């Protein structure tokens, strides 16, 4: 493993960790503009995390060690996910884990978060855990079908290979990819607790899913959890770029100048994606919890349509 590969790996992980809260702030800012509210500063998430790091940690009486370990595990898994997803260039760690391992990684994070939520034994924790797991097990097949369609085209489930294959394909309208992109967007919204499935800003007991699990956390643990959530959104966005906007990725062989070109490409893509998410969120209202299965069934249907179209039309 040459030094440059390790360097790019560390750079990419660092960039992901750093850019994630910025991306979250950017999305909240776009949402505020679209809902013509005065927007909070873009770096608000950084400040919130720094503030939380300086508060006293308050733990429930009978919180077990699992409760205290969970934030580190969740944050760690999200950073590893960032290390796997080729946001700027193909990475040495890609060979160790492909897209299915990535889905598994997200599942690990979700399981640990749910277990931690159930640990304290309050009504909201278990309530949130149950719903998070429900959204999880409905979204996973759809996400897997999305990856399958992409891997059908590129004959492999390793992300760099997929993005390279898609990048080098002749430019043209690929209906299968279009359907899959829609499916992926729906899954992204569901997994990251965005509006149609769950409102990230609310603490309303009946509707919150993701927030319910973090209810008992405070100070540094809450900071880590918030940071992990931002990182998760960033990772999902990068997966979306890898699958559907693969241009501008520096392939492994290219030197530092390709890397230099890749950073602005990533920032541009992030900006566009952030705006996209904000537009979707302002246009749609929150679904009842038991309408979420239909929402995710629609996502699954789009992915299957993408796969069928690819098989039948070969496009």
């Amino acid at each position, binding site marked *: 493993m040459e030094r440059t590969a390790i360097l790019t790996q560390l750079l990419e992980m660092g960039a992901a960790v750093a850019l994630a809260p910025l991306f979250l702030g950017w999305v909240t800012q776009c949402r505020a503009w679209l809902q013509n509210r005065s927007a909070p500063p873009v770096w608000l998430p950084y400040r919130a995390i720094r503030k939380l*790091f300086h508060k*006293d*940690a*308050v*733990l*429930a*009486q*009978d919180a*077990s060690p*699992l409760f205290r370990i969970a934030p580190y*595990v969740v*944050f*760690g*898994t999200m*950073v*590893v996910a960032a*290390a796997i997803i080729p946001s700027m260039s193909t990475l040495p*760690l890609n060979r*160790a*884990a*492909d897209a*299915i*391992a990535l*889905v*598994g990684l997200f*599942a690990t994070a979700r*399981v640990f978060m*749910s*277990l931690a939520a*159930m*640990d304290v*034994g*309050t*009504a909201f*924790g*278990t*309530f949130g*855990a*149950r719903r998070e*797991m*429900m959204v*999880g*097990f409905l979204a*996973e*097949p759809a996400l*897997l*079908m999305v990856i399958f369609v992409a*891997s*059908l085209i590129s004959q*492999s*489930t*390793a992300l760099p*290979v997929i993005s390279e294959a898609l990048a080098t394909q002749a430019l043209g309208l690929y209906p299968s990819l279009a359907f899959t992109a829609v499916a992926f967007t729906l899954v992204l919204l569901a997994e990251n607790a965005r509006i149609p499935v769950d409102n990230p800003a609310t603490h309303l007991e009946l509707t919150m899913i993701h927030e319910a699990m973090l209810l*008992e956390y405070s100070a*540094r643990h809450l900071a*880590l959890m918030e940071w992990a959530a931002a990182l998760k959104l960033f990772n999902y966005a990068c997966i979306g770029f890898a699958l559907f906007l693969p241009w501008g990725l520096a392939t492994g062989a290219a030197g530092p100048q390709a890397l230099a070109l890749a950073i602005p490409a990533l920032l541009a893509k992030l900006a566009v994606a952030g705006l996209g998410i904000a537009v979707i969120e302002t246009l749609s209202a929150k679904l009842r919890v*038991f309408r979420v*299965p239909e929402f995710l069934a629609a996502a*699954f249907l789009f992915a*299957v349509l993408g796969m069928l179209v690819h098989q039948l039309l070969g496009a």
Partner: protein
Amino acid sequence: MPVDLNAPLPACLALLGAWALIGAAGLLRPSSVRFAGRTLFPLGAIVGLGLAAVAAVGLARPAEQVVLAIGLPDLPFHLRRDALASVFLVMLGAAAAGISLFAAGYFRRGEGTPPGLLCFQYHLFLASMGLVLLADDAYAFMVAWESMALASYFLVVSQHRIPEIRRAGFLYFVVAHVGAISLLLCFGVLQGGSWLFTFDAMRAASLAPGAATLAFALALIGFGAKAGLVPLHVWLPEAHPAAPSPVSALMSGVMLKTAVYGTLRVTFDLLGEPHWSWGLVPLAVGLGSAFYGVVFAAVQTDMKRLLAYSSVENLGLAFAGVGLAIVFHGVGMRALAVLATIAAIYHCVNHAFMKSLLFLGTGAVLHATGERNLGRLGGLLRRMPWTAWIVLVGVLAIAGLPPLNGFVSEWLLLQAFLFSSEVPVNFIDMLLPLCAAVVALCAALAGYVMVKFYGVIFLGQPREAALARAHDCGWLERLGMLWLAAGCIALGLFPAQVVAVLGEVAGGLLGEVPPRPAAPWWLLVPLPDREASYGPLAFLLVAAAVIVVTAVVVRAVYHQRVRRSAAWDCGFARLDARMQDTAEGFGQPIRNIFQPFFRIQRELPDPFDAEPRYRVTVGDRIWGYAYVPLGALVRRLADLAAYVQRGRIATYLLYSFLTLLTLLALVLWNGPRS
């Protein structure tokens, strides 16, 4: 007795004999817990380890046969150890070692059958399972197969005072017997006119396509009944919870896998060239069982029934793998067939370790609290730390989370499904990728079930006051569980080596040994010409590194002040344990989403009820559609047959009179025979 390493079969037989001897020794002092518990079961564990070691050595050795003196005069017992049998023997030995170790500490007071007798039945069960894997002719296989069912029946009804346990035992033994009958028919068809019932004769016999299909169908019914595939699964959620925990661990972990072994043996070894269309049936039934099992597991309120349904799911996935292998083999894609078979066998081995660990966990909980109903558990992490943390490894493994072994076999299965779109049969190449979605759904649901299982039992507040007195299990039990957890972790972190070994086994079975991929030792590349790869060790190291770095950085930046206070109760003063989510509650989304699958009986009080009772029971539709009508039909036929015995002597005389006349008429009508 010098163990001849390049001919391990006699050694395997000796070890199986040792198990039987240990069992017999248990009979000497049936009522003493110390003798059976402290000496015999650990001895059994050591023999298990020995068997695993010898079989592991045998993996690389060529197949060998031996003919025993016992058996029918002209069909003595033929035994054969080949690579496939060795893999399952390794699994049997390793799992039995852990479970026996746990059982040594588990059996205490004399509830149900005396410990000595239980030790006898337990070790006879192990020995007969070993014999099933080694049998090489129809008679030996049938004797071993039903002895396995008989021994496990006695173990299931060890606490025979409880009517439900007796009913479960009866149902289990009847379904096992029906399965055995269809296997007998299958062997009858398999011998294909040579009328020799040794497996070699069956391998040599070339069957007409129709007969081969019939043989495969009968084998699938027979082995499906033992594996608990959907229409024949009703006994599994009844029998496994009824048995003592080490026994249900053994049944779920190892006995169900003999069905997968049997299917592989009959399909690829005895039938030779299976037609690709055969594969669709185990694939469809497997996926159906997987989905059905996990959906039902999510709504259970008894922890052992939950694990039993989860076994139905995992066996469904294994049979789906076997079905996929048959489809690939049929259309000639040998490399992918080998991959699918590896996935199926790997999943069996994984499940043996994971499910045994979980059942042993429930055993420890049961002994500590005396409770099986999830509604009366909770918060045991603080009182039973050892059990909780070890079971957490099992829970994460069976939920299919990356660094551990559950994920590896699912990953292999999904890879196999991914390339199923290249099957040259139209329609099928589109349907198979959809099956991948079902596999993913089942894996995700398994995560859901396991979060419910672990969360409701170990986390949160204790739902009953009595749980405060719960104590952790003894050191023997911890050792047994640790061995299984270590197995899960090892199988998860070193998949490349395991897949290499399984590659040879599957290759030997399917007739094409896969080339060794040129990848570093820590990376698993199943198909050399494809790009997919998975390196759990590197993956784990990076994750661990990141977590440690984060922890150190946070520790350095952050002052250490931590304050403990009551959990947030949003203004409601008394936050008690009943306000936690119950097992039914956790299953409610599943009940809501997959409503047509269940037979839900609700018992809701009317408004004027003095003490209202809310009761929702979730039943199994298949029981009402298939088994109840069958029982009614037999009873109706019995009532019909009873007309013959009406009690009047005149009618009896009339029967014999008419029989005489009809026979005479028959003889006369046939005319004089010159």
